[in-house]
Structures are given as C-alpha cells and as structure tokens.
C-alpha cells in the first residue's frame, strides 16, 4: 500500500493581488526555496500559503488536511493553519520583551507551559541572556533569531520564511545560516523559504522552485536545478551570466549528441533533445576560466578585453572568437599571467557546457 504524501501540496492560480500560477509540493522536514527576482510573486505565494491572502482558484493541502479549496469555498485563516511565519522584517512586537514575543506565539499551549517553552527556544537560538530586552535594544541578527524562535516554538505544521536573512550583514547572515542548519534536525514540518540569493538557497534548501512573473520556471532538487537550468531565464536567475547562442550543425540521435557551431568553433555535445539543423540554441557556459585543464577535448579561443582583481579572483571580460556576446569569467590570479596577451584558450569538457 502506498503511504499518503506527508507534507505540503500547493496548486493555485490567481490574478489578484498579482498573477500567480504555482504547483509544487514539499515534504515534511525538507526546505524548499522559492527563488526569483523582486516582483516574481514569491512573497505573495508565501502569504497565500499562510492564509493571509486568498487566491481565486486551486487547492492547498497539508498532511492530507485541506487548507484551501476554491471549489468547496474552503479557506482556513492563518490562525486555523497553525503555521510559523518569519516575515522579511521579522514582525516582532516592539513593546514586548524577547521572551514575551516568543510567548505570544504559544497561545495553543496551556499558560503554565508557555514560559518554559519560550525559554527553551531562546536558549536554543543563543538568546537566553537577552530575554528581557525589547527588539529595538537588540541587533538585526538577534531580532532575526527571536523571530525564528517565535516561529519554531509553536511547533508549526508549516514554517514560512520570507527572505529571513536579507536584513542582516553578511557576517551575521553566515552565522544565521549555520544556526538554521543546526536547527534543521528539530524541524519536522515542511519549510518554505523565500530568497533571491542563490547561494543561500544552495546552502539551505533541499528543493528549489524558480519563479518569474508569477509563474514557476523550473523546480526540482537544488543540485538538479542549479546544474541543469532549463531556460535562459532560469540560468540568469541562478546567477549564470554566460549564456551564448550557437547554431545546430548536425545531430546524431542514436548517440544523443549534437554538433554545434559557437563563434568560429565547432564541437559535439551530449544532448537528449531533438533539434533542427540550423536552429539557434542557448549554451550555458561555466563562470570559471580554467586555462590549465589538460585532457579537455573542447578548446575555445577567447578575446580578452579586460581583467581586474575582485577579492581573491581576477574578473575577466571576454568574448568568444567569432561571437560578440560578452562573457564574465573569473580565474585564480596565477592563471592570469598566462593570459597577458589579448587572447586565451579556454579548455572545457562537453559536460561543462549545457544546451538550453
């Protein structure tokens, strides 16, 4: 017998307050990141899951319990859904102390138990000593941790995090990432996290949902989506700048390979898709220039326009010989000595290049 799906199932379609069309699921204990640029509809989707916004059509279920069903006119309020929610600016109650803030989320418990539970969670996020301070007396990272403790102390059925790390400095963000990873073993519900930071999604999320203009562009496991974006927009969302167009020269469907022309270069790539001869296809190239690769069967000659030091890397602006699309690459400084001339040879394996 097949066990029923345990987690969140969301299938919604709405045009108010903005257009959103989304269908995805998230298992208990897993983190799904909603990744997209500002205005993609991530926060609106999160508020729909929270019950703060009612969509026009669709269904939302959690562990076989229906939270929203447009056909049955069923819409549970946020209070009925028992969720944990960390808004972008934390939504702390400024007139209450850190402890009182956490207790505010515990009205489902008997009064006698609330204080101890709140204390436990403040200790778990390392803020036991700050429990009597009010939010304005705390730093951004501490406020974020109180908001997280308040959401988690409820032992919610669904945890929603709306860009929870965007309002803190990079150093604090790293600490908070580690804190969430540490707490992950104690979270047994689905976690939906809105972010526009690909590295954050890569670090924390099991699944990735890419959103653009209210629609889901691509979804899958984080590694799968990051390694194989299915469109140019998806590639750009994932921070891949180097998308160039090539022309299909021939295709061998028995071997599932396609011969392409990229600038003045021709080479063969693995490609399961059926292409037309002469078709323009997008090629996703790596961001790293590795001129020391040996055993690489593909050699692409680059015109180097300029390069400059950026942190520990050299940033290189280049184009492929015979193509005008600008590429942004980075390289270790010692490799750059070999590219002092205006041209460099970029050695790649066929799996380094993804046809979109």
């Amino acid at each position, binding site marked *: 017998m097949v066990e029923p799906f345990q987690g969140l199932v969301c299938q919604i379609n709405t045009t108010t307050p903005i257009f959103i069309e989304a269908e995805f699921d998230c298992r208990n204990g897993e983190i799904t990141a909603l990744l997209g640029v500002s205005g993609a509809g991530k926060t609106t989707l999160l*508020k729909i899951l*929270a*019950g*703060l916004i009612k969509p026009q059509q669709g269904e939302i279920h959690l562990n076989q319990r229906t939270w929203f069903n447009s056909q049955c006119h069923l819409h549970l*309020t*946020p*209070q009925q859904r*028992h*969720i*944990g*929610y960390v*808004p*972008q*600016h*934390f*939504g*702390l*109650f*400024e*007139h*209450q102390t850190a402890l009182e803030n956490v207790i*505010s*989320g515990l*009205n*489902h418990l008997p009064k006698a138990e609330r204080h101890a539970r709140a204390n436990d969670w403040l200790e778990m996020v390392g803020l036991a000593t700050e429990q009597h301070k*009010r939010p*304005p007396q705390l730093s951004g990272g501490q406020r974020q941790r109180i*908001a997280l403790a*308040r*959401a988690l102390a*409820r032992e919610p059925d669904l945890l*929603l995090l709306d860009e929870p790390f965007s309002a803190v400095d990079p150093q604090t963000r790293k600490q908070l990432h580690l804190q969430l990873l540490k707490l992950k073993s104690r979270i047994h519900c689905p976690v939906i996290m809105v972010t526009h930071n690909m590295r954050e999604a890569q670090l924390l999320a099991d699944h990735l949902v890419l959103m653009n203009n209210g629609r889901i562009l691509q979804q899958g496991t984080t590694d799968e989506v990051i390694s194989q974006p299915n469109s140019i927009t998806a590639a750009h969302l994932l921070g891949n700048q180097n998308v160039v167009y090539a022309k299909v020269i021939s295709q061998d469907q028995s071997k599932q390979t396609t011969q392409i022309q990229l600038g003045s270069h021709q080479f063969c790539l693995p490609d399961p898709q059926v292409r037309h001869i002469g078709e323009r296809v997008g090629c996703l190239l790596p961001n790293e220039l590795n001129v020391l690769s040996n055993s690489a069967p593909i050699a692409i000659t680059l015109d180097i326009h300029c390069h400059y030091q950026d942190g520990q890397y050299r940033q290189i602006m280049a184009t492929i010989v015979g193509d005008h699309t600008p590429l942004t690459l980075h390289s270790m400084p010692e490799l750059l000595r070999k590219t002092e001339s205006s041209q460099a040879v970029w050695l790649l394996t066929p799996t380094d290049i993804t046809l979109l």
Partner: protein
Amino acid sequence: MDWQALLLSIKLSVITTLILTPISILVARALAFNQFRGKAWVEALAMTPLILPPTVIGYYLLVGFGQQSWLGQTLQTVLGTPIVFHFSGLVLASLLVNIPFALQPIQRAFEAIPDDVRDAAACCGLNRWQSLWKVEIPLVWPGVLTAIVLCFSHVLGEFGVVLMIGGNIAGETKTLSIAIYDKVQAFDFDAAGIMSLILLIFAVCTLAFTTHLTKKIGVNRG
C-alpha cells in the same frame, strides 16, 4: 469664579472623551486597514468639523435635533427629555465636533503599524481582538493618548456649538467658555481672567504631560 461651569465643562469633557475614544479606536482601525469604495468620502466627512464654522454645525444640530424635527421628537420620546438646551445635547454636539480630533491621531498610528507585525500576529494564532488588544493598542498608545488630550482640551474650550445647541442654562448647559463670555459681557474681568487662567494652565499642563508621556513611551521602546 464660576465653579459650577468649571465642573460642568470637566464633566462634558470626560463623558465625550470616554465615549469617543473606544469608538474612534475601532473606526480608525477599520479605516487604516481596509480599502473600500467611498473610503475617501467617509474620511472627508469625518474631517468636516475641522473646517466648518462651529456655529454652522450648531445650527444644523439645533435644526436636526430640535423639537420641530422628526429626529428630535423621536429622541425626546425615547429619552424622555429634549436634546436641545439640555446636557445630552451638549454631549451629542461635542461628540460630533470632536470626531476629527479623536480619529486622526489614532488612524495615523494604526497606519504606522507595519504589515509584517499584523501578519506575524495573525500567524501567531492571535485573533482580531487579541491582535488589537495585545499588539496593536500598545503600539498605537501614543496616538490614543494624543487623541484623548486633544479631545478633552477641545471640549473644555468649545464655545460656538455649545452655545448654539445648549444655550446658556446655569448648571445644565453653561460651560466654562460660556461663563467667561458671560463675565466679559457683564464687565466682570476679574472673574473672566481667573477662569481664562485656569483654562490656560490646564492646556499647558496637559500638553506638557502628553509630550512627556509620548517621549517616555518612545524611550522605553527604543
């Protein structure tokens, strides 16, 4: 010094403030958090007493609630007493005239509550009343305090509307402002001076107290 007029003014101020403040909290919250057709008209109507001459408001109240009007006759039957030239008329007039003074500061304070805070309250399981009582009212408290002080002081100094609807009946509708006017008419400048000084000291003290309290609330939070 007309102590009776002073007590009547204080009684009118207290009753008006006690009735108007809770109503204003609920109406201000509804106006701050909801969008509906005709909202601009409702807000404009609530602000009208600010720009309309008090005598004009007094005239309409006198005509509207007078014994010749249907409304006035109905209210007299229900309450057993006429509204005009009676203390209840003063309360009604004070309530209407002071709507903008009570509503505006509270509505602005509600509007200043970030959406994140209200969303978090709902997701913490707090229902509307719990959210209002435990989260929103403590946050809008400086606005409520400002509304109370403005309302109380404004009723204490109200003249035009009170005179129009209440007349000048000692112990019933003769407030401190009207008593001052009476004394000046009678060339009793000493009595008028004492009563004016009391109103002045009261106004300065309440404003100083509100400013101090608002700052204290700000310091405690920040």
